[in-house]
């Protein structure tokens, strides 16, 4: 067993007195695919925003490979190796697929503005390596034939795949996927699962928020259930889905009784 890549301890976040996240604690094993599920309003998205630096937690710790991420900006956290996608799918609509991926900072770290402006040797090397990596990822998500098309022409599902490639571009330690298959054509969901599996084989761990039970069950080795901002249960997906507390949280008391 390898140690956790991500550890969340006692995470709290309130908005105007409403406790969105209330003491959530869980971890993601290095190289694993872990699911984060829970009913609407259970605090999943807020937890992800706190982990990735887009919201500042009121209390608690977020450790990436043992180092505290507290107070870091999203860009610093991304550079440390934790990237994410967004629930409202985000891509650079005016850029083609290659440009979308070449924005990512990591391949150009150390080049500097002067090198970028004057197209220095160091910049050109970084550019070649970045483009090779970008083409690989576009191949991985199956969008090669659209590589020069502006992202604006992509379908909703294709945009999600492009956003996924963007999150993978920096070869991160952990990627948080916020609803990767919500709104995606059901016939394509297995393809998405296969893409995540292949990316995972490269060593990147995934934390996946998703409502699609089949997707989570088929993909995750471990599932964490949040309810009212705190961890309700965790374990292998089949076991979690039979847990009476989980059924109650999702369906209400009567359904269980």
């Amino acid at each position, binding site marked *: 067993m390898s140690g956790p890549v991500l550890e969340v301890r006692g995470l709290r976040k309130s908005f105007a007195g409403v406790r969105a996240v209330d003491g959530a604690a869980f971890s993601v094993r290095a190289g694993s695919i872990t699911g984060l599920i829970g009913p609407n309003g259970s605090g999943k998205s807020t937890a992800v925003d706190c982990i990735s630096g887009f919201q500042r937690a009121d209390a608690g710790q977020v450790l990436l490979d043992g180092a505290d991420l507290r107070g870091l900006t*999203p*860009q610093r956290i991304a550079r440390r190796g934790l990237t994410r996608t*967004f629930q409202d799918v985000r891509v*650079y*609509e005016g850029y083609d697929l290659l440009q979308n991926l070449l924005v990512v900072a990591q391949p150009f770290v150390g080049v500097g503005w002067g090198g970028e402006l004057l197209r220095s040797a160091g910049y050109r090397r970084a550019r070649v390596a970045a483009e090779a990596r970008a083409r690989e990822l576009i191949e991985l998500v199956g969008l090669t034939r*659209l590589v020069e*098309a502006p992202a604006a022409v992509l379908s909703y599902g294709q945009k999600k795949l492009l956003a996924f490639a963007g999150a993978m571009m920096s070869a991160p330690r952990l990627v948080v996927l916020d609803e990767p298959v919500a709104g995606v054509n059901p016939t394509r969901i297995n393809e998405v699962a296969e893409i995540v599996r292949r990316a995972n084989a490269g060593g990147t761990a995934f934390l996946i928020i998703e409502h699609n039970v089949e997707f989570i069950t088929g993909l995750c080795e471990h599932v964490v259930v949040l309810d009212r901002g705190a961890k309700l249960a965790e374990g292998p997906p089949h076991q979690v889905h039979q847990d009476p507390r989980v059924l109650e949280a999702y369906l209400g008391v009567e359904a269980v009784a």
Partner: protein
Amino acid sequence: MRLALPVALVLLVALPWLTASTYIMGIAVSGVLMTVAAAALNLVYGFAGLLSFAAIGFWGVGAYCAAITVMDWGGSFWSGVALAGLVNGVLALAIGVPMLRTRRHAFVVVSITFALLCALVSRDWTAVTRGPMGIPGLPAPSAFGYVFAGSARFWFVALGFSVLALALLHALGTSRIGLVLKAIKQNEPLAQSQGISPLPYKLLAFVVGAVVTGMAGGVMAFHLGVVDPLIFDFYYMQTFLIIVIIGGAGSFWGVLAAGLAMVVLPEALRASNDLRMVIYGGVLVVAMLAMPRGVAGWLEDRRVAVLRAKLR
């Protein structure tokens, strides 16, 4: 297409031999200088997404810096324009850091406030600016004994400066810096999630924009021969903004073409002197209704529509 740029450059250099009219040469000089200021605004607004009215402030501050260097400190025109760039760079850095922490409308309001303050200072700080009287009698610049007197000769100074400034802006816009700036404009949180710090990039665009605008203003002062608080007139700001919006915010060549059109159009309409500005306004309104994202934006939208149709 490959020949378009060299041909255009040769024609521009030859302009004083193509026309004997000092009037036309005067229009051409202010035209290229305002196009440079518009291209600088395009970096700030079109690339970085910052609708900054501070441009008119930098334009005027640059004009005063250059004029004061020559008239009060005995410097040359060239050192005056260089100082205009330096002072504007420092000024933009100083006000940019707090300004860029404001968002959207707040940023626009703060930038307007800066521009208004500049105009007030130029009017009331009479010890330095000589107030509403202004600083008249700016001499023509000279180099190696050659005096660039009159619009036809001053044209080479203005054109030389403009080509250098536009080359810098083009190099910046087509570099990775330009790519990242437009990414931040399109979706700032996404850029952050990809390891990009927006603030240094925005500050860079703001400062480079201010330096270029200020130097253009400095050159403009010597074209006008006088600098007074009217250099902060909204007419200039409006011209920069119209050029950027009609050309297409974010498009270097679109803005350049629009700069040319905005200079030629009002003059071409002189045939009917009474209706000139009315027709000009009408053309602008129609252009905006038909192409809200400017000429370059309209072309891009057509391209995307064609691709979409192909993919269906």
